[in-house]
């Protein structure tokens, strides 16, 4: 019966399902643009997890204590796992891992521009956990209700693990802020550098966002970029106050009327620059990924060779 439906009817059923808060599952009919839009967003999300391992990995060998080092290792390992959850969810849409990797390497797929900034001091690891993961969580909590089943389920799993990431980051900042003057200064400096890029993580203003309207209609996105950004600002101001750090925005002020914090305008030129490969470490991040991928080729080859050999000897025995 389903075969005789026109494209229009199929699309109608699809939208009704979404409007009724039902999830779309891999084998359901879906508009081509829904599929493409999801692949774009999910692969961008997956790439961000994996590229994000680089700025943090930078400090594993120089963590200030064995404990902090073990924690950082565990966190970076989690990020790799999150990338894997997301890649496999994206693959349920009919794209291969090889294609996904290739589009990261040739620059056609994006990742969160924040990972194009360098991690200059140990405090940057604290700032990334607290602010960058904090911003990611706000986004990901919202995405637990996204309309595509495998993506939503992946988000639930990720959110559960992500909470430790933010808390360990905040714990680093809290400890530094209570330390010597130099340590406190280091913490403040990291906040100064990571605050604005964290706000940029939510993407362009709703009015300027190319994909937003359609994504909201299809419930791929559940809350708009600006709504999520506001939520992040509102929750972070208090967290900064508690440990005596300031957020580098002279326009940041409580607005009694709206019940939210007002904040200054983001430097969108900087955002575009960083997003399109002009960030301080953009080239290095992708080049490193390409290098790791190419240097790992022999492992993949060896696994295939071993499989082939095993199969051959099994056939011979049979």
């Amino acid at each position, binding site marked *: 019966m389903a075969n005789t439906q026109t494209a229009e009817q199929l699309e109608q059923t699809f939208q009704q*399902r979404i409007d009724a808060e*039902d*999830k*779309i*599952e891999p084998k359901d009919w879906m508009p081509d643009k829904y599929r493409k839009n999801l692949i774009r967003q999910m692969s961008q999300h997956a790439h961000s997890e994996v590229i994000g391992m680089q700025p943090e990995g930078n400090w594993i060998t120089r963590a200030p204590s064995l*404990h902090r080092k*073990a*924690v950082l290792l*565990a966190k970076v390992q*989690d990020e790799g796992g999150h990338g894997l959850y997301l890649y496999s969810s994206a693959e349920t849409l009919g794209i291969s891992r090889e294609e996904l990797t290739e589009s990261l390497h040739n620059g056609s797929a994006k990742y969160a521009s924040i990972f194009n900034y360098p991690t200059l001091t140990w405090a940057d690891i604290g700032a990334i956990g607290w602010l960058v993961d*904090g911003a990611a969580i706000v986004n990901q909590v919202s995405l637990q209700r996204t309309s595509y*089943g495998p993506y*939503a*389920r992946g988000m639930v799993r990720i959110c559960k693990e992500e*909470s*430790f990431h*933010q*808390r*360990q980051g*905040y*714990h680093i900042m*809290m400890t530094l802020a209570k330390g010597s003057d130099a340590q406190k200064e280091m913490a403040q400096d990291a906040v100064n550098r990571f605050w604005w890029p964290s706000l940029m993580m939510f993407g362009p203003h709703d009015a300027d966002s190319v994909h937003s309207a359609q994504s909201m209609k299809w419930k791929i996105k559940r809350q708009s970029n600006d709504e999520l950004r506001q939520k992040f600002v509102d929750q972070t101001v*208090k*967290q900064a106050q*508690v*440990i005596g750090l300031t957020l580098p925005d002279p326009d940041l002020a409580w607005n009694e009327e709206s019940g939210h914090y007002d904040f200054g305008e983001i430097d969108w030129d900087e955002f575009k620059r960083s997003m399109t490969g002009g960030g301080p470490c953009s080239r290095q991040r992708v080049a490193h990924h390409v290098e790791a991928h190419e240097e790992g080729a022999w492992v993949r080859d060896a696994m295939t060779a071993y499989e082939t050999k095993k199969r051959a000897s099994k056939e011979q025995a049979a």
Partner: protein
Amino acid sequence: MSDHMQLFEVFIRSRRGLDHKHVGSLHAEDHAQALEYARDVYTRRSEGVSIWVVNSSDIVASQEEDCDSFYDPLDDKPYRHATHYKLPAEVDNM
């Protein structure tokens, strides 16, 4: 006759958005038949919207006795849990 029939494991998605969950197993000649049997046996009261059947012989499982080598390292890493980090009460809902 039943000697020849393969064993299948049955997984059911009770509602859109939820994972398929293992509900039991059955014997059938092939996948198509297993799917029909699963429908008859496991979804008589609209328990599901989607069924998976998998050859039981295709399932590779870890053994509980392997726990030590498989899971042991996780027990001494309490710092993987959010509760490990003691934060001031005002921000503890982080």
